[in-house]
């Protein structure tokens, strides 16, 4: 995509992240998702005559923590401004946002696509209030409906520089951004419920040209999959237009999931003139030195920290690292399990990325709600490492634990009868019997087809009912056959 029919794409992203506060940004209404429509509303968030906003401290803290996490300059004096426009979901006829002087500026995020780390500039992060929700599927086809529960939920708007050059980079950027917000416990990152939303500015230009092409704005993309698809389609569309000698029109387009294409917004497109001005109802937001210093000191673990540890310190394979970093709960689970079984991070990672992940994939709460306690998994892996159970047996134990039929892996292993036999005489006898009864395979092995050993190991295991360490069987077989 970086060089596509002689064009390259230039992408900038605007992310709106709902901040995880209990109450709204300017009033005490709850922020919880999924309530009865228009039950979480009051005179302030409905913009009643005479109602006034008072800023929620927690929203500021979330935004500052995020700004610090991406290396922003924190403007210790920032200003709330009114963005004026009319829309049914916008109660006051203006949105309280930040304009001239946002809370955070000049940050950076490194994205890694195919092992090539690239710094992506973040122009600004500012606080604003969310709008309500317009609904168009109701009882009366001549009407639209509005639910104001979301109006006033705090948002951080995160604006990237036009530094992204491909849909893949855009997705990598979004994944990293989302991970940071989740690590900070500032946003739940739920794209379906709209708590992490993305608009994209896209343009294309001939490779080598430094001036930017005319951009379009894509709205309504609510999954990573759609981000990639929408961007790919829009880039193709723009290249088609230019290749045909046409001109890209500056406009807002929506991603149409069903038609699988972007289309211009149907609503009447008017020239936007938001008439921003400082909100006279709110004084400047001041983050004093003490407050800022405390937030700096409280810097929590970030995805980059975990990545450095898993990759650099523990030497885990890249796909495992990616998964354990992006899914914070899974990464936390890994660390907890590892603390019980510190000697074998690869094995722990392997279990967590495969078995634990499969178990909790669709569960609410993710790995944090896994029925197998990380401590138990760590203990189980310890049993494997100590040669007490084989991996096949360990898997059986894991399912016992997962089903809630046991909590102590050692006890479960005994109950299931999967503890390995520690009887070298029985093993030697079984090996001898298998060699004696598998003439053809033995010949093949000795003729150089060494992979046939797998079959022989299996035969021994079968005779011993699996209660023996396959590695040990393998070793013994080789010793006999190679002798």
């Amino acid at each position: 995509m970086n060089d596509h029919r002689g064009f390259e794409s230039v992408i900038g992203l605007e992310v709106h992240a709902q901040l995880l506060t209990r109450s709204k940004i300017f009033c005490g209404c709850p922020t919880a998702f999924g309530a009865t429509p228009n039950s979480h509303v009051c005179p302030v968030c409905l913009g009643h005559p005479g109602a006034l906003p008072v800023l929620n401290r927690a929203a500021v803290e979330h935004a500052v923590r995020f700004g610090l996490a991406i290396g922003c300059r924190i403007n210790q004096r920032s200003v709330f401004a009114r963005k004026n426009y009319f829309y049914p979901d916008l109660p006051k006829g203006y949105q309280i946002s930040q304009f001239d002087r946002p809370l955070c500026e000049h940050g950076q995020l490194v994205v890694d696509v195919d092992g090539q780390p690239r710094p992506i500039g973040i122009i600004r992060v500012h606080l604003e209030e969310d709008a309500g929700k317009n609904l168009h599927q109701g009882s009366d086809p001549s009407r639209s409906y509005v639910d104001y529960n979301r109006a006033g939920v705090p948002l951080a708007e995160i604006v990237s520089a036009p530094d992204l050059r491909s849909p893949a980079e855009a997705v990598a950027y979004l994944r990293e951004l989302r991970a940071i917000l989740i690590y900070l416990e500032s946003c739940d990152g739920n794209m379906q419920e709209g708590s992490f939303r993305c608009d994209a500015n896209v343009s294309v230009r001939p490779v080598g040209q430094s001036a930017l092409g005319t951009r379009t704005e894509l709205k309504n993309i609510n999954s990573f999959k759609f981000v990639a698809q929408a961007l790919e389609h829009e880039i193709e569309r723009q290249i088609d237009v230019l290749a045909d000698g046409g001109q890209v029109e500056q406009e807002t387009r929506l991603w149409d999931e069903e038609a699988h294409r972007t289309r211009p917004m149907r609503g009447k497109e008017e020239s936007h003139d938001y008439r921003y001005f400082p909100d006279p109802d709110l004084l400047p937001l001041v983050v004093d030195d003490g407050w800022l210093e405390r937030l700096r000191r409280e810097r929590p673990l970030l995805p980059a920290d975990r990545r450095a540890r898993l990759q650099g310190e523990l030497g885990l394979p890249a796909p495992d690292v990616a998964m354990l970093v992006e899914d914070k709960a899974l990464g936390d689970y890994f660390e907890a399990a590892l603390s019980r079984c510190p000697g074998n991070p690869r094995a722990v990672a392997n279990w967590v990325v495969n078995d634990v992940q499969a178990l909790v994939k669709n569960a609410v709460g993710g790995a944090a709600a896994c029925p197998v306690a990380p401590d138990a998994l760590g203990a189980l892996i310890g049993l494997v490492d100590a040669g007490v159970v084989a991996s096949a047996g360990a898997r059986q134990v894991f399912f016992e634990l997962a089903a809630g039929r046991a909590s102590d892996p050692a006890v479960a292993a005994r109950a299931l009868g999967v503890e390995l036999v520690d009887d070298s005489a029985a093993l030697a006898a079984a090996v001898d019997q298998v060699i004696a009864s598998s003439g053809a395979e033995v010949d093949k092995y000795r003729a150089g087809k060494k992979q046939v050993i797998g079959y022989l190991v299996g035969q021994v295991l079968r005779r011993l009912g699996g209660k023996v360490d396959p590695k040990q069987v393998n070793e013994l077989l080789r010793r006999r056959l190679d002798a």
Partner: protein
Amino acid sequence: MTSLDDLSLTEAAALLERRALTSRELTAACLARAEQRRSLNSVIALLADRAMVEAEDSDRRRAAGAARGPLDGIPLGVKDNILLAGVPATAGSNILRRHVAAYDATAVERLRRAGAVLLAKLNLDEFGMGSSNENSAFGPCRNPWDESRTPGGSSGGAAAAVAAGLCLGCLGTDTGGSIRQPAAFCGVSGLRPTYGRVSRYGVIAFASSLDQVGPLGRSAGDVALLMNAIAGHDPRDSTSAPRPVPDFAAAIGRGVRGLRVGLPREYFELGGCTADVAAAVRDAIAVLEAAGARVSEIALPHTRYAIACYYLIATAEASSNLARYDGVRYGDRVDPGRGLAELYLATRGQGFGAEVKRRILLGTFVLSAGYYDAYYRRAQQVRTLISRDFEQAFAAVDVIAAPIAPTPAFALGEKTADPLTMYLSDIFTISVNLGGVCGMSVPCGLSAGPRPLPIGLQLIGRPFDEESVLAAAGALQEATDWHRRRPPEGGSGRP
């Protein structure tokens, strides 16, 4: 005993305290008065039934020895841009004609806590936009001194109601003079407190950085008692000042010995005051001087830019503040049945009056792309200069004395043809709002002629120094009786 209609709040409070009067009697008298003076059109909603219940409650409290202070049982009015839960709050606009307030304004809540009886919602210029009360969707209010004249605006209904004895005090709002100018035109006392002194929560906004709630009463003492109830920090208003509240009533008798009073040269040069106004203001200053004040001339050099500055800032803020009236969540909706865009246009086009539309258009224009810096930002810079003028002046004096308006109440219809002429009449009051200082109007004379009209003296104080202003007002009212003059019955007789 003087007629109930002539009592000041302070006097009524004393009678209630002595049990020489009940709140029920007083409230009934005010309600009767309201009926009698309907021609003034000062009332948008008379809350007769509620008021009588509140009066009875007050009498019961008093009988039980649990009276809440000087305002307990006192019938008061509230300008109809201030919210009372469960009562319509129209802001004088058709667009809110049927809007029932969901909550009490903080100032109202505090009056209730003080035991006051809330008797009427009072007429005003639509959304507080006007200087004559002629921009009300409920028709103009009339001046009790001469019903062919304006009571001033925008708190015209409040000033007229206090002057005519419909209630013993009122809450008004003052964005560019809307308490002080009608107080002067109707011969009552009115204070615009320092910005941030009284909560704006529950006050229908006109221009948020200029609006302030304040009391109107029959004397400086009445105003001080009302201030004691309504002033103070409110966590629901982010611009409310977290400052201790003094006992304003104690300032009334403090006297002016040694008080430094400044006369702004520009106010006397620029305004084109009538001879009556100039003489009355000079006489009042002489009274203060005789009482021990030290009078000197000062300069407020940017005064002449105040009106231009004000109309840019106030309309810009208003254009945004009034965007919420879209006929979706509340207010009257006009739906021509041709879709959402038309609903907005018709609702707002038909719901707002001409002056409101004019100001929304001006404000929209000055904030719009390409004009912001030249108009809005520049106006805010000039506002800084005006504010500095006050800072410098208040380094040398404690209170500034000036006229309120160049003329006494003008005739209804006199200035409606040309909005700019109407704006220019606010020359003396507007700087106070821009500068974030406090200002008061006290009666200081009557014009000559067959139908004398009240003249007001303006007293301006440092931010949060309402006490010095009240002290000067108190001294003036100690030495003169202009504040005791009542309008003639029917608005045609002699005072």
